[in-house]
């Protein structure tokens, strides 16, 4: 198959682009070194949680916390990648995303929320994180109006400590009455089970019934119940709603350390949509180079053993992530590079200058490094000139944001991945092909 588009990367940015393109009838090939992104995050779509200088303010940082993300997007500094998408672009991407998941293989599992108001969700350590669009299984965790929460953990799930979480949550200014309980119950009775292992357990009715039995009698009036984000991987909607019925009160899950079950659900949904649309993913296929002809990339190279394979397509979406995934790398001589196509990087610290500051929670000089793009997501050079015509860049590879601090990573990935797809659809003949196909049908 000669694809219409090659997407490099299987994170949220890459998959969003690939699925959107597939929806429009494109033949999409996704090349990636492996799987990532989604499996490591919360599984929520955080659009913008904090803006302005980061702080460890005594009020818990409420000063720069964003309540209304759509409005706050307009106040971001120039050079922030959200600027290349715009508020409408983000909104369109979010709407599309919600619809896609709701009509996906996990239906009626769906995402709730929007860009008007952030929810405030508890984190696994008991802090409170602003999030815009979240799985229905998490929505009841919104603590903006306080309330009472019983956090249920499992001794065998070492990546979730309910008593610690509850202690901290109870200190939140939002006025939550929280307490934690720990159950000595695990799928298979093993002492060390991962989140995914628990999720598979929760997919089984027998396990759910046991959990409900152990928890039910201990709950207080008006208490909602929090579990670790393990409420099923095959049928989260069924799992979660049954628990709510059994316990007779709102239930929600709290994301915790990887592997992220909500993230895996998200990945599975998008992958399913991609396959339905005729797209293909090849893993173990790191892009090691590209052939260029003027302002076009004509082929991407991957390698197995001694032989390279050339992959050609008229359009390419680069969504390889940032430093965490190796999309951008720094060597031992402090030289940074974008690893798939060798694009120049922007927002690097001065050569010989500091890359990091001594205080861990500060924003560091290297934090915003990445590939700079123009309004059409094409990579640009130092002078702002477009470098490549048929390559669009999306996700954490982009320069100008500090997504883990701003809580903007998912929003950026989704919005830029979606926009990359939209741009390709407009600029290529895909749009016409799709319209033609509809007309002929």
């Amino acid at each position, binding site marked *: 198959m000669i694809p219409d588009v090659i997407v490099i990367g299987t994170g949220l940015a890459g998959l969003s682009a690939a699925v959107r393109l597939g929806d429009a009838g494109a033949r999409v090939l996704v090349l990636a070194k492996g799987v990532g992104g989604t499996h490591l995050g919360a599984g929520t779509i*955080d659009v913008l949680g904090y803006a302005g200088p980061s702080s*460890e303010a005594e009020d*818990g940082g409420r000063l720069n916390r964003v309540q209304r993300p759509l409005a706050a997007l307009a106040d971001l500094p120039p050079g922030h990648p959200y600027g290349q998408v715009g508020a409408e672009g983000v909104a369109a991407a979010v709407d599309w995303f919600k619809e896609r998941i709701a009509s996906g293989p996990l239906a009626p599992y769906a995402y709730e929320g929007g860009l008007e108001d952030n929810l405030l969700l508890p984190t696994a350590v008991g802090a409170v994180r602003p999030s815009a669009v979240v799985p229905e299984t998490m929505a009841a965790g919104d603590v903006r109006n306080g309330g009472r929460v019983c956090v249920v953990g499992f001794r065998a799930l*070492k990546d979730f400590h309910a008593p610690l979480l509850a202690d901290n949550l109870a200190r939140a200014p939002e006025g939550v009455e929280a307490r934690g309980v720990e159950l000595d119950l695990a799928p298979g009775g093993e002492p060390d089970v991962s989140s995914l292992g628990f999720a598979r357990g929760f997919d089984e009715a027998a396990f759910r019934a046991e959990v409900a039995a152990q928890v039910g009698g201990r709950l207080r009036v008006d208490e909602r119940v929090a579990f670790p984000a393990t409420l099923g991987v095959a049928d989260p909607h069924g799992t979660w709603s049954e628990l709510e019925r059994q316990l007779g009160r709102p239930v929600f899950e709290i994301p915790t350390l990887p592997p992220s079950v909500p993230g895996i659900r998200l990945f599975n949904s998008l992958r399913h949509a991609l396959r339905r649309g005729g797209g293909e993913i090849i893993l173990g296929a790191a892009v090691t180079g590209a052939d260029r002809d003027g302002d076009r990339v004509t082929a991407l190279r991957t390698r197995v053993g001694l032989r390279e394979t050339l992959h050609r397509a008229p359009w390419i979406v680069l969504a390889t992530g940032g*430093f*965490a995934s190796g999309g951008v790398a720094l060597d031992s*001589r402090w030289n940074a590079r974008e690893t798939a196509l060798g694009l120049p990087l922007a927002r690097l610290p001065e050569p010989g200058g500091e890359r990091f500051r*001594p205080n861990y929670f500060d924003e560091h000089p290297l934090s915003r490094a990445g590939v700079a793009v123009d309004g059409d997501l094409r990579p640009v050079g130092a002078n702002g000139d477009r470098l490549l015509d048929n390559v669009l860049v999306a996700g954490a590879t982009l320069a100008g944001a500090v997504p*883990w601090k701003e809580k903007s990573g998912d929003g950026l990935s989704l919005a830029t991945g979606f926009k990359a797809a939209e741009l390709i659809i407009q600029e290529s003949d895909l749009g016409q092909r799709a319209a033609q196909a509809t007309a002929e049908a």
Partner: protein
Amino acid sequence: MSGQTTDVLVIGGGATGAGVAWDAALRGFDVVLVDRADLAEGTSGRFHGLLHSGGRYVVKDPVAADECVAENAILRRVIPDCIEDTGGLFVVTPEDDPAYGDQFLEGCRRAALPAEEIPVSEALRMEPRLNPGIRRAFTVPDASIDAWKTVWSLARGAAAHGARILTYHRVLDLHREGDAVTGARVRNELSGEEFDIEAGFTLNASGAWAAQIVRMAGIEGIGVIPGKGIMIAMNHRLVNTVINRCTMPADGDILVPIRTVSVIGTTDIRAADPDEIPVTQDEVDQMLDDGERLVPGFREARALRVWAGVRPLWQDEKSGPAAADTRDVSRTHAVVDHIQRDGVERLLTMSGGKLTTLRLMAQDIVDAMCRQMGDERRCRTTEESPPGNEDGELYSIGSRLRRREKTLRDEQLVCECELIGRTRLEETIRRRGTTNLDDIRRSLRLGMGPCQGGFCIYRATGILHGVGRLSGAEASASLRHFLQERWKGMWPILYGDQLREARLDDWVFQGLLDLEHLPAGADGAPAQAEPDVQSEEPARA
């Protein structure tokens, strides 16, 4: 706690102090040891991990070489579980003078150090990653030694014989009555409480801080040159043998496989203050280049952590001018007799020395004390092993993996990189009575693997919160403190794979947990706890 009385007050809880406490306790003295921080938090915890064969000193410092030869053999006998018999190689790199090898061999022969020249091809077969351009190679009985295990083993041994080990107790002042030092005033850093310790004798084993301590007794003219050296731990054992550059002692000329990592070091720069020892970019670059010289491709390997330690290099106005390069100052140790030098009684200070000779240093200072007291009890540290070394076997790197294999399905694994199970962690938290996760790190190697605690520290915090009955604020403060300490050791060497790890951790700690926005509470004020070193068996492997 009101005042305490003891026979011997040992100031300093590093290898020297722990060794002294063990020696004195074995002789039947009542001992109190104080350290302002955790045991081995100073130089001992930041050293290279090398149990010297003595080869490094045979040419330039024969006395030091002789000491190393003897003590190397003794320590293998008495604290085998702290020592891994890695063996060592001295290699002449392309940049070194091959003729030095002859001097080296001659020096080894004179010191009765069993060194042997082997063909380069044999060295490369032993260690395939060595620079193929090396010109000569010699085997020596180097080994790697785990400083924390050593120090804790000695301290527990002392405690088993009645000693009181008081960590987080800072000496504020020494008491003088006429010409004698009669004890010290200390402050419990955790509770803030101050009290006096009356001591029959005070032994100053505070290493790089020794000058600060003696000044409290009104003694002047003593200086300790803090010889700063940085070391970098690489993620896995690039070599399984200690590799020394066969040349006059220089920077970056040793690569030590210690536990699951290999450590390259070190530099030698005079510092002004032993507590102000920043890691500089130049030093890092230099260490990486030095590593590359020994193991080509070193720069592509993963660096985990960098730290600086200070060698306590003695400078006494009353005995000759100081040298410029601290390496030229003799590495041997000396007991400073304050009666002779200053007319002050009941105080002795240990100067200089290295971890390899810790037992001998302890013997010398306790012997000197006994002479001054007119006491005839003799040293027994060549005969007895401190706790933890009962099976008499040298440490092997596979031991944790082997042990974990037995509890694979029974126990939760908390620190996966270093294979630490939940039971072990809970026991250690209880036994140490500490809320400082960094202390736990030193005891167990928690968070000392590739992820540097990225994945296990949340787990450990939750467990600490439960076992230690901490408040959410206290537990969170502990977690943040750990992350900050960790960052100190990471950011100067953050590139390549470790940068990926760090960025992933940022996504987890900030993006997912939003840790930085936890409401501040009892920040930096860990709960009251009495460190309890006396109880139970010491931690194994």
